[in-house]
């Protein structure tokens, strides 16, 4: 299928139709899952057929098409649906209208008001398709969420204005009368930072009017009310990135310089732009690759970027699920309630190390023997870690002849993909398929028997019992693709502790991935080293995170270009941010449908 230059913009129903059509391809990824067919061989070259290109928009911006066909498979791969030999041309994806996530709101507030602040409650974020940004673009804030905003704006403004020194520093001048020039100048400057663009004349007049009408004779009350209002404005609470006609490419829309400032800052800092970035936007520098590159390099060196990148990986790797982990210490003596959080910290330190200290191939996340342990994890992994305490993490090298290397052998992955009393090769295999390789695994068909048989005298270990379960042809299709990689982790129990026996019987940790036989988790790590799907998946997930929606079919050529550049860069994650930020896909946008 080809996306002509006008195909998107002409018909209001275009997106809806496209998403609907893709809905029909749902579940094809693991081809013939239910019928028991084997998935396609996953050789490296097959890896970039984009098993999960996703489709449709997860945002509400397409109305009824929202969140549709999220895991539609391969529907738009080059080989399909296009009788033409020429590769389809890239077309920009749909605009979205995300609300700030809770952390973006708090970070933006910190940027606006340096110093300590109250921390009022906000509506919790949700993460459909893993990312908070997608939740923020597809859901409606509740009444109590809006009330939270009202009360937060009040609490923050009151706190700042209660301290005269802080208030004066914020204003930078002393008003001599209600809504005077000092107030006007301050509101223009403050408004630019909050709205991430200069206020229009109308907006400036509106807030100056509030500073006057609600002042009750006190200029400071007036300014405080205007600040409170700006903090509740949708221009602050939502990211408005609708683009403008691109004079260099008729029919195309690009993000404006100011919109680019917001996009870059929420992507790289998970916060609003600083003055330097806004100044670059004012000089219209963020329309050029050169201008964007300069800002991205600067921003990546800022500590905020390190936190934001950890945050991205935490979402991509689904680490939030660790907070739901509970284990009985009688059953798992190494477990205590703080352990899941410790495991999460380990992954964050590892990601930070790979991105910022090593600066090498980010895919080493899945293969490296380097990690960071506190005393609990040192005991869990059985490694010497001089200096490690319950609250001190130290770098360690896992033994070359040991069972562990890479994320898929660490506590976080092994624990959150297991049950409270037994492991789950199914959950672990599903994680490999969905999170590491970006494939789609359908849930069990409705009404199917999910009961894993008990130890009946023949099937003793969980593996044996699962293999028995798989004798049901209805189950075999999917389980044949997820259990064999999942079995590779059977040497690790539900808190990631190494074990030799399951239920008193020897462990069999052999398995396979897409037909190539493997033995144990480290074998899998080696196998993943040159699997293109791993690097491509990182790009796909970062793209979804950045765009606040699933990638759409017509964007695929753009996504592939980013994946190719990422490979050329040696899979350096910092490079990927720059490649993304300067890419055509990231800088262009389709017109609003049905405005």
């Amino acid at each position, binding site marked *: 299928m080809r996306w002509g230059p006008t195909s998107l913009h002409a018909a209001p129903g275009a997106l809806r139709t496209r998403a609907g059509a893709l809905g029909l391809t749902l579940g094809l990824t693991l081809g013939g899952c239910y019928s028991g067919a084997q998935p396609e061989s996953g050789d490296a070259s097959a890896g970039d057929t984009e098993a999960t290109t996703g489709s449709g928009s997860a945002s509400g911006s397409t109305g009824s098409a929202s969140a549709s066909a999220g895991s539609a498979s391969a529907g738009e791969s080059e080989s399909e649906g296009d009788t033409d030999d020429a590769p389809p041309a890239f077309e920009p994806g749909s605009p979205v209208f995300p609300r700030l996530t809770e952390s973006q709101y708090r970070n933006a507030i910190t940027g606006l008001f340096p110093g300590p602040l109250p921390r009022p409650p906000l509506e919790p974020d949700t993460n459909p398709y893993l990312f908070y940004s997608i939740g923020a673009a597809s859901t*409606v804030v509740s009444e109590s969420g809006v009330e939270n905003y009202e009360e937060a704006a009040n609490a923050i403004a009151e706190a700042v204005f209660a301290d005269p020194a802080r208030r004066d520093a914020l204003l930078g001048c002393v008003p001599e009368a209600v809504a005077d020039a000092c107030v006007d100048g301050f509101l223009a400057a403050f408004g630019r930072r909050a709205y991430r663009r200069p206020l229009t004349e109308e907006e400036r007049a509106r807030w100056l009017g509030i500073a006057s009408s609600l002042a009750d004779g006190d200029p400071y009350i007036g300014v405080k009310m205007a600040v409170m209002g700006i903090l509740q404005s949708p*221009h602050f609470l939502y990211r408005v990135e609708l683009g403008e006609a691109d004079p260099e490419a008729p029919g195309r829309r690009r993000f404006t310089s100011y919109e680019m400032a917001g996009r870059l800052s929420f992507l790289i800092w998970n916060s609003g732009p600083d003055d330097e970035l806004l100044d670059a936007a004012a000089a219209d520098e963020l329309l050029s690759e050169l201008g964007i590159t300069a800002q991205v390099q600067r921003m990546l060196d800022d500590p905020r970027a390190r936190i934001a990148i950890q945050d991205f990986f935490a979402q991509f790797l689904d680490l939030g699920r660790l907070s739901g982990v509970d284990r009985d210490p009688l059953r798992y003596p190494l477990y205590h309630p703080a352990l899941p959080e410790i495991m999460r910290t380990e992954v964050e330190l590892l990601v930070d190390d790979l991105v910022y200290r090593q600066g090498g191939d980010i895919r080493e996340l899945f293969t490296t023997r380097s990690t960071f342990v506190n005393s609990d994890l040192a005991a869990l992994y059985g490694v010497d870690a001089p200096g490690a305490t319950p609250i001190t993490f130290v770098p360690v090298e896992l033994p070359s002849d040991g069972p562990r290397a890479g994320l898929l052998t660490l506590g976080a992955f092994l624990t959150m993909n297991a049950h409270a009393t037994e492991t789950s090769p199914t959950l672990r295999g599903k994680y490999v398929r969905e999170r590491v390789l970006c494939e789609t695994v359908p849930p069990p068909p409705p009404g199917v028997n999910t009961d894993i048989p008990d130890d009946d005298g023949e099937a003793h270990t969980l593996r044996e019992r699962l293999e028995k379960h798989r004798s049901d042809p209805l189950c075999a299709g999917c389980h044949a693709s997820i259990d064999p990689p999942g079995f590779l982790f059977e040497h690790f129990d539900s808190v990631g502790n190494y074990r030799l026996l399951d239920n008193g019987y020897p462990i069999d940790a052999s398995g396979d991935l897409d037909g190539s036989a493997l033995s144990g988790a480290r074998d899998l790590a080696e196998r993943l080293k040159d699997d293109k799907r791993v690097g491509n998946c990182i790009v796909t997930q970062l793209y979804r995170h950045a765009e606040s929606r699933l990638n759409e079919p017509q964007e695929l050529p753009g996504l592939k270009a980013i994946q190719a550049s990422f490979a050329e860069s040696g899979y350096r994650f910092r490079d990927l941010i720059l490649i993304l930020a300067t890419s055509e896909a990231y800088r262009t946008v389709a017109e609003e449908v049905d405005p």
Partner: protein
Amino acid sequence: MTFKVPKAPLARRTFLRGAIGGTTIALAIPTLEAMIPRKAHAAGLADPIFGLFYWANGLPWHDLHGAEQVGHPDLWTPATQGPDYATSELLAPLAAHKVSVATGLEPKTEVPPDPPGQSDGHMRGFMVALTGDRIRPEGFDHPSHTLTALRPSLDQYVAKHDDFYGKSPARFRSLEIGISPARFHDYGHWNAISYNGPDSLNPATMDPAQLYAKLFNVPGDLVALGRRAKLLDAVRDDAQSLRVRLGAGDRARLDEHLSHLDEIQRRLQLTSGTCDQVPAAPADSGDLMEKTGIMGELLAAALSCDLTRVFSFMLTSPATTHVFANVGVPDGMHKVCHDGSWDYVKVVTTYQMQCLARLLDIFQATVDPMGNSLMDRALVYGVSEYGEGFKHSTKEMPVILAGGCGGALNRGVHTREVDGNLCKVHVTVLRALGITCPSYGFNGAETTEAVSGMLA
């Protein structure tokens, strides 16, 4: 099956308000029967209260749930029907409260073939129980468990219906309360049971201190509150230039956001409607029973002060992964169900009914100066997401109707209708609350009938 003449739609409260001459309400031409209230609310009894109580993962399965679930006794359905039924093992914790139960009901919504998976009893079950409608087919994604509702859940339908609050809504139209933070997924309908419509959820407050602050920490500076209320006009104005630039879907999202400002503005302008007797600041607890008690006390205080008359109370969220270790269940509830661990599910269901009993105990003990308890005023609709969680069967949905609803609801009645329409419960609830309801249920689940024997 007996054919019943549908009850006419005219609501009692509408009738009463009309009689007082307060509000003019456009009526369909009513039958004479409909004009006669079945039973006026008992004299001196304050307005009715509606609550939704939700527990996860249904019942221990039994033969009537399906062919694969055979071999276990039905511990839920009382052996006798009608008033003063003999209670069952699982309902025993609620016996003191003379709750009414409807058994044998199931969702009747049509299931479109595309996208696949909409027949999954799990998602279909709680959607019909809460909204009377099916999952929205557009955007439904079975592999990722992404789903949304087509319309409001019953608590929101009631809270926003003119027949319920009329022109004088309580300080809060509704409260959303949650007990267990365990969740199957971190998104959408897996962690909320109160909806306004598609992709629009009312997340539950889980923190007692936060609920307490919302209910009882009302600032006293009326001048400052007045400024904050006026400010919202400017916020609304400031959004206008934006809304016209958005596509239809995003504009609808923004408009819903802006419409919430109306309620907040109304609240900021209230000069009354706060509690005279403020309870002590609450503790917190990780124990579901204790926390039910803590949140229940705050809720009861709010209800008796008329801070609200509608609530949802999510003991556990759909498909909960909560580990009920305190009653000897070692694994998460969702897994226990799918493992077919019937005995564990029985223990957990009993415990969840004990938690409901704890809430109802508090309501019973909260008595107004006229001697009427919250239980006399309340109608609490207790429901779970499906009949049972082993196979996700939606047969034999568990339905509890607790409280007297100001005399509108018969207490202690068991009505059994095998394969009956679950939406009869919605009709029953709405009519008992005095809300005009010619029929309820959508996309194949429409019904004009209430559960027989329930309405007084």
